[in-house]
Structure formats: C-alpha cells, structure tokens
C-alpha cells in the first residue's frame, strides 16, 4: 500500500542533482560526493580506482541505508591534488578501461568466430 514505487530505485527525482559535491569544513582537500540513485556497482569501482591514485590519502563509500537510494563517496587527497580532480580522473580511467575491455572482447570474438 505505502510501498515506494519500484522506479524510485533508479530514476533521479526532478529537482535533485545526480552528483552533489560537499567540501569538508575542517580538513583541507577532503570532500564528499553524494551520488543519487547509485549503489555498490558504481561505489566500489570508484573507490578501488581512487585507491590506485597515490595522491588519494583516503577514499571510501557508503550506502547510508538500503531504502535511501544514494551513495556517499568520501575522498581525502594530498595537497598537490584535490578531491574533484581525483574523482574526475578516476572516472576517466575507468571509462578508458571499459573501452579497452570492450575492444578486447570484440577482437577476441572476431578471432573466435574465425576458428
């Protein structure tokens, strides 16, 4: 009866931003990104990619509550970088990794069909 609609899980409501950036008030180069309507799929790959960046001192994500369809990614970087820079960089890297992955699949599939 009062169950939320199923689409609530993946449709960003009107008037809300997909990604909200909030800088930490106490620590420099620390910030959290609130991503609406995403879950472990995005949270975990982003976190692991951020860990590959040596300028990132801390990177973590949390799903605050299973019925709040959002994740919070917290990033703390060294002074030569910034959370937004690390965040954008890791998305770029993942994007290129997936491009590469897709190409490898297509190359292999071509070879697979030949033999």
């Amino acid at each position, binding site marked *: 009866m009062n169950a939320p609609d199923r689409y609530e899980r993946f449709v960003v409501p009107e008037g809300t931003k997909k990604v909200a950036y909030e800088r930490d008030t106490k620590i420099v180069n620390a910030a959290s990104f609130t991503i609406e309507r995403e879950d472990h799929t*995005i949270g975990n790959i982003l976190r692991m990619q951020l860990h590959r960046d040596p300028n990132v001192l801390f990177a973590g994500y949390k799903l605050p509550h299973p019925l709040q369809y959002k994740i919070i990614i917290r990033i703390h970087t060294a002074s030569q970088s910034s959370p*937004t820079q690390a965040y954008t960089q890791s998305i770029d890297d993942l994007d290129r990794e997936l491009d590469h992955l897709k190409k490898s699949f297509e190359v292999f599939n071509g070879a697979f069909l030949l033999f």
Partner: protein
Amino acid sequence: MEGVSYQRFPKVKIREMKDDYMKFELRETDASMANALRRVMIAEVPTIAIDLVEIEANSSVLNDEFIAHRLGLIPLVSDDAMGMRFSRDCDACDGDGQCEYCSVEFHLNVRCDSDQTLDVTSNDLRSTEPRVIPVDVATRSLASESGGFDSPDQRRSRLQQMILSSTSHGEFTKLRVGNPLCKCNSAWRKDTSRLPKSIFMDFLIRSLVTFIKSHFKWIYPWKSSSSLVPSGIIIVKLRRGQELRLRAIARKGIGKDHAKWSPAATVTFMYEPEIHINEELMETLTLDEKRTWIESSPTKVFDIDPNTYQVRVVDPEAYTYDEEVIKKAEAMGKPGLVEIYAKEDSFIFTVESTGAIKSYQMVINAIEILKQKLDAVRLQDTVDADIGELTQHLGRGL
C-alpha cells in the same frame, strides 16, 4: 595540473561461447570491476518483457493477475532493447507508453472447442513487431528453417501426439483437470471403478513414449534434448468452451525494476586458483597416504600419475576453496603439503542467458551500460566545484 592516468588494461580470453552460455577469463583488473560487470549484467542490462495486459475475456481456471504475471515472465527476443526507449522517457507518446518507439503490442485469442484440453502457449502470442517474439518461438522457427522438412524430433512429437489422442488418456486428464470442481467430485466418485484402469493405461502410454524417445535417440544420436519440448511455454490450459482473449504491451525495462527484465539466468565469477604442491614433502607420503589425501578433496583437483606415482594437479579450477585438502594435510601431520592462493587479479566468468539477449551481447551491453553509468556520475557543474576549490585556496592563503 593535469592528473596522471592510473588506468588498467585488462585482458580477455573467451573459452566457450554459445548463444545462451559463455565462459571467459578476465585478467589484470580487480574484483570491483568483475563484480560491477556481474551486477550490471544481472540487474541493469535492458530487455523487453510484457508489462501491461488488458484482458478482454478470460474464462480459464486462472485469474487475470495470474495470467498477466505468467505473460510477463516469457522471455522475448530483445536484440533491439538497447536502441529502444524506456516508456517513462519517451516523448512520442504522452507518457502512456504505447507508441512504436517504446512498446510492442501482442494479441492472444484462443478458444477451446474440442474435448481435448487445449494448451495456450507462447506460440499463440501474435506480435505486431516481427523482431520481438518469444525466444522459444524464434529458436524453433530457426531450427525448422535450417532443418528443411520434418526433423526427427518433430516426427517424434507428432507420433507421441497420435498415440496420446488415440487412447483414453485425454479423457483421463479431462476428468482430473478440465471439469469444474463440484462436477469433478461427483464424476470422480462415480468413476473410481475405472480409476485403476486409467492409471494403468497412463502408465502404459508413458512407458511407450519413453521407449519411443530412447529408440529415436538411438537412431538419431546427433539430435538431443534441445527440442524435447516442442510446444512452447504453456500459459494456461483450456477445456471445452473456455476462452482467453487479451492485449499485452511489452516494454523495455531492467532487472532492478522487476526480475522479468533480467537477461541473466546466472552470472558468476571465481578467482583463478594457483596450486603449489610441496614435492619434497609429498614424497614422504606412501602411495596409500597420497590416495587418501587426494580423496579428501570433494572435487577432483588432484590425481596420481600412473607412471611416476607422483601427485599432480589435474584441474585447478575444480577447487572450490573448501580447504579440505589443507585440513587433511594438517591432520596427517604434514602442514604445508600444498599451498593454494587465489590470484586476485584474474577471474573466470560463467554467463548464462535466458535467451532474450545472446550471452556475448549481454557482456558487451553490460560494458556499455557501465560506461553510461560512469558518464552520468561525472561532476556536471564544474563551476560549482571550482568555486569550492577557489574558496578553499583563498582560505588557505589567508
């Protein structure tokens, strides 16, 4: 201040590929990527499934909701799903989700006019879009096209039907299933004298059919289980006078919304195991000890070389990380007999599809969807973020 790239270059090796099954190796990436791919394949690769059903007439034994639910679960060929629109973001129709860009219409119109129970199946669904039809119908039409005239399996099923219709079997099922409950009860009681005979006949027919099945399999060994079920997915059964008429709208959707939209039957991945046997310590074991140690593994990972009597690894991937062999070695007083690691950067994927999308396409679509998701989480208003950074720098300067 442009950042350096920390990108990885994963390697892929496809081991096995069929329309509905695929096995591949994914190397030089980490578990988060493997798991993201798995999660996307299960819950976020779109397919097409029946979503809205308008029932015009239903005098069958199943209620409307029950039938609507069963229709939704029939897998439909979804090769076009990636290019289709979600009804909720379709501008062509004003949100009613019934236009050619975001939906496919199906019609079903069946009425039983014979004494035989009539199966309403996925075959009876009439699609308005020839590219979107039930998966089993598509595979069957493909099989019969390539087969030319009657395939042995079709001949077999025809023979089965002939046998079934020429005996009292139909009557027997009608008594049990077809009649309304109250009537059935009285008829049932009246006919109890006939019951043992019917069961016997039923048994006789079943054994005859099994015999024919096995007989034909022996003659045509290359044709196997694929078309043992020739009739399609059963939606409901009708008796004389019952009918089912409906209009169904199929839409694009994702597994997160409802599992009927998931193209995945199963998607799993495992770490590739690396098994090192301590040969020196192994040689201190007698042949019998080696045998009992090998037998302690629930899966067949090791065996004994018949020539040298040495223990060797035959199938590392059969290892299920149960650690039974390690415990056994310790119990035998030989700790460190074998060392097993999980290679943390290589994965073996098994992908099974429902048939809605071919397994290979499912993986490609998953990669594409994951890319789209990543693009969606990019910082949109860089201005906002830059101001944040600027004030931060200013704050530090002061």
